[in-house]
């Protein structure tokens, strides 16, 4: 039993705790303790990882452990982490933590809500610590299923429709993925599904030609790649706050992470040959999402489309197939995770007070609920890439990296992707101007409850994290770029 499995074990223990807890107080206690433990765990793992690397351990994955699970099919349970997983674990812990506090007073059925929520986090953590295709896929599925119930039961608006659409589309993606993973396993001829082992083998190029698109699209659906992104607006719009946070903040990162770790890492030749198709698709995502966000009137739709744009940038950068752009992609995952979670948290909290998410029905909120107003502006500024907030470093790393590709095709696409920073500014400022500034639209909005302590805790944590990544990017960037190296060597083969 490797200590990494604690990341899965703690949420499992939280679930048990929830089973025996009798009232809201106990539920809150269990969730808060668990979430804090997870944050401490990920901080500890980060520290251990960095010391291990500083001590000169150059293995691709550290702290690996492998247990045979079902020998006849070579199914192993294997875990291990590199800098990218560490970054993602940190992100997940922060989001899980803030999500708990954002849904502190969830009603009805708090116990059941948190049960599913913990199960969801098992899936998320498990995905990031696994180095085995099967384990990875299993956790991926674990993360998808609770989503349906969380949205369908605790959501708002057209929740059944949203939940069904989100789950079915993601399941469709995972069907492609399953074919891809099995194909990779059989074509590689490896004796286990361990990624580290498969990468040593050579998958025949003909097989790569169909396995790469399958895998990339499978993960791409989760990463909201055009044209498989439409689950995102509907799903997010109907999801409860914490679920939107966790979903947009972490689950969508599973897509990018998977594309990087499975599709590109294991099938480098096909990645070189076929990247242009997906570059065009993700390039479209970036601009298309941003343009769509301009005309939306529902806050959650705006943020969902902006996620399409930002996550498009993640996949876009991964497909540039060079170290800087890939580092930027991971930083963008981190940065987008934090700021989109902040956005969804704030939208949920504002919605809880104004009972509307339509920007046409709100106005002048800055004066009434200044805490949320200021936080929303900060989130907006992070989203449009203000230096010292996380968005800037991530986007700049991506753009500088993408520009290293000298041919006209890549260059033009990069410049097109760059235009998203202007379009982002347009929709962010439109929202801020409409809902926060100006005169109060609705007289019921003249007296709204101020932020409670748990809401403040949740929002402030995210803001601090955004500032931390944005103002001191050097350590996180070097940690990630070291871990991107194996993929680069693989691509150079």
């Amino acid at each position, binding site marked *: 039993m490797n200590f990494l499995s604690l990341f899965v074990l703690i949420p499992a223990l939280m679930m048990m705790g929830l089973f025996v807890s009798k009232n809201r107080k106990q539920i809150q206690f269990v969730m808060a303790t668990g979430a804090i433990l997870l944050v401490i765990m990920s901080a500890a793992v980060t520290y251990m990882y960095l010391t291990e690397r500083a001590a000169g351990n150059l293995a691709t994955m550290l702290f690996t452990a492998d247990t045979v699970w079902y020998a006849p099919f070579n199914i192993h349970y294997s875990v291990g982490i590199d800098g990218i997983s560490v970054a993602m674990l940190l992100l997940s812990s922060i989001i899980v933590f803030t999500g708990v506090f954002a849904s502190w007073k969830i009603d009805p059925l708090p116990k059941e809500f948190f049960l599913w929520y913990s199960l969801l986090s098992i899936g998320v953590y498990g995905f990031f610590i696994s180095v085995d295709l099967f384990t990875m896929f299993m956790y991926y599925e674990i993360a998808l299923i609770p989503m349906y119930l969380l949205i369908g039961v605790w959501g708002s608006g057209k929740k059944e429709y949203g939940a069904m*659409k989100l789950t079915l589309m993601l399941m469709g993606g995972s069907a492609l993925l399953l074919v891809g993973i099995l194909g990779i396993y059989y074509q590689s001829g490896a004796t286990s599904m361990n990624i580290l082992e498969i990468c040593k083998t050579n998958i025949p190029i003909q097989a790569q030609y169909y396995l790469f698109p399958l895998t990339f699209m499978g993960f791409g659906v989760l990463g909201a790649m055009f044209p498989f992104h*439409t689950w995102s607006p509907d799903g997010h719009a109907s999801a409860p706050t914490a679920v939107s946070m966790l979903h947009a903040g972490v689950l969508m990162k599973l897509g990018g992470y998977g594309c990087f770790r499975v599709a590109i890492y294991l099938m480098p030749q096909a990645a070189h040959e076929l990247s242009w198709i997906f570059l065009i698709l993700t390039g479209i995502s970036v601009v298309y999402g941003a343009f769509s966000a301009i005309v939306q009137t529902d806050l959650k739709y705006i943020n969902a489309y902006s996620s399409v744009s930002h996550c498009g940038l993640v996949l876009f950068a991964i497909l540039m197939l060079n170290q800087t752009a890939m580092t930027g992609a991971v930083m963008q995952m981190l940065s987008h995770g934090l700021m989109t979670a902040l956005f969804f948290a704030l939208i949920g909290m504002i919605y809880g007070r104004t009972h509307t998410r339509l920007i046409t029905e709100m106005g002048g909120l800055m004066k009434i609920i200044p805490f949320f107003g200021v936080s929303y502006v900060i989130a907006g500024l992070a989203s449009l890439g203000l230096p010292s907030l996380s968005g*800037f470093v991530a986007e700049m790393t991506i753009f500088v990296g993408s520009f290293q590709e000298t041919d006209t095709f890549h260059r033009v696409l990069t410049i097109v992707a760059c235009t998203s920073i202007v379009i982002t500014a347009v929709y962010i400022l439109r929202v801020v101007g409409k809902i926060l500034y100006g005169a109060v639209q609705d007289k019921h909005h003249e007296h709204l409850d101020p932020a409670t302590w748990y809401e403040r805790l949740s929002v402030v944590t995210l803001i601090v994290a955004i500032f931390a990544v944005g103002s001191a990017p050097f350590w996180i960037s070097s940690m990630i770029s070291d871990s991107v190296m194996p993929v680069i060597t693989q691509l150079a083969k």
Partner: protein
Amino acid sequence: MQYTLLIVLLPLISFIVLGLMDSKWKPQVAGIIGATVLGIITLLSYITAFEYFSFHKINGVYEKLIPMHVEWIRFTQYLHIDLGILLDPISVMMLVVITTVSLMVNIYSLSYMHGEKGFQRYYAFLSLFTFSMLGLVVATNIFQMYLFWELVGVSSYLLIGFYYTKPSAVAASKKAFIVTRFADLGFLVGILFLSFYTKTFDFGVLTSGNASVFASTTGVSFMGLSVMSWAMGLIFIGGAGKSAMFPLHIWLPDAMEGPTPVSALIHAATMVVAGVYLVARLFPVYEVYAPDVLHGIAYVGAFTSLFAAVIACVQTDIKRVLAFSTISQIGFMMVALGVSGYGSHEGLGYMASMFHLFTHAMFKALLFLGAGSVIHAVHSNEMNHMGGLRKYMPITNWTFLIACLAIAGIPPFSGFFSKDEILSACYEFSPYMGGVMTFIAGLTAFYMFRLYFNIFWGKEHKHAHTPHESPFAMAFPLVFLACVTVVAGFIPFGHFVTSDLANYDIHLDYTVAGISVGVAILSIALATIMYRKESEVPKKLATTFAGLHKAASSRFYVDEVYIFITKKIIFNLISTPIAWFDRHIIDATMDGFGGVTQWTSSRIKSFQSGQVQQYAYVFLLGTLFIAALVYFIH
């Protein structure tokens, strides 16, 4: 010179303290903190300037000092963003300009903003702005500059939108941010181009004159143009956005929605000259590797200058007149850079541009603060609500007059010297350019005195209560800046700032000076005739040239073009169809998959009737069928 770090860091600390400070404290505390910090860093900048200009000259050439720098983030083997402090003549000069004007504005605001809601927020934003602007000018590399460039843009956004309950202020702040952001896109792509080929962001390396840095750019072209033209042209677009060059100037007049001291600091003296500063910073690169772009800059500058000057002649909002005058004067600085060469005498334009930047910052801040004082007294921005104020506000009147004389180019005020150098440089470039710029100088004198007479002379307007002179905290900055304006022209600027960092003795070109002073006096005389007393001449002129007057009053419809592009094209022709396409094509396809599945299952649903007997019947038939099949096959 480690202490220069404090100059940048103190405003940041002040921002953080003011931003997080409890709102229960008295607002004055915020003002005092802000002004004190500014006082300290102003002092530090003066010390820096003194120390730098007296002790850091080696063989008659100023050295470039980097007292400190740290690596902030590393992109590739070569490319990394450093945060550091670069001291060279122009950055030291900018330090002095920014801290001085900022200090004056901080003091002025103590009284001007007194009693405003959000006083503390105001001072926090001012500190943020000062921090960002100082970080921008001392940038050691182009990416650090871009970073602070964005921060400056945001502080400007926040300050323009200070009165956030006023829709016009919100719209103006949004416009300012988006237009400059669009320009920044150019800047960013330009940086990407430049850094990819030169493998560096560092100003020291870029401007060292080392040809090997640019070796890989020779003969490389992208979509038909050489990469250096792309890079430098795009970078200039960034500068043009911040410095409000045509056609990206539209945000600046609207930015006057912000509090007046903010207009003085950001939209007159410091931020808007960032574009000029950027071009000056990269001047050696422009001059050698993209001379075509440099000439383009000259023409853009000249056109903008003329364009803005014409509009300024007919505006009635006093802050807008000043805004257009700012655009026009920045045009002068750009032209000067554009026509300049490298070296001692060839670099006259460069020196003149920086000189004008310096003097303009002082007298334009003075003009804006004066206008603020007037607005404070009469509670209106409109010219025809003013008139005859000289009796009530003597200090404002005199300081405003000094500033007007300076901007009009009357000796011995500072504007005369700097403008004269620019005109000389233009005449050397080409007589046409010189002629045009002299004409614009004449226009400048005309509209400034139109403004002056309309405010302080002319027919007295009925006021609700008698206008009064401003209190000490507002009067002091006016007097201080007026003194600077009087003496700044005598600074031997060529000893401090030149294109090649060496000494250059300024000589007045008496022909040029004579012409420009003559034109200025003529224009002032014209303005005096037309506006000193109430007269029918302006109205007559307006009706004679009705078309031109109307076009200029509506700022030549550039805003309408923008609104057309944003509303009609981007919003209605791009975004709305995309959103429609997303909902009705892409999403409908996805829903379509679900629909087809549902349809199919509803078709085959009747098999599952729930009637046991029907199942048994089908079962029986199936059994018989299989039995028959088995029988016949065998």
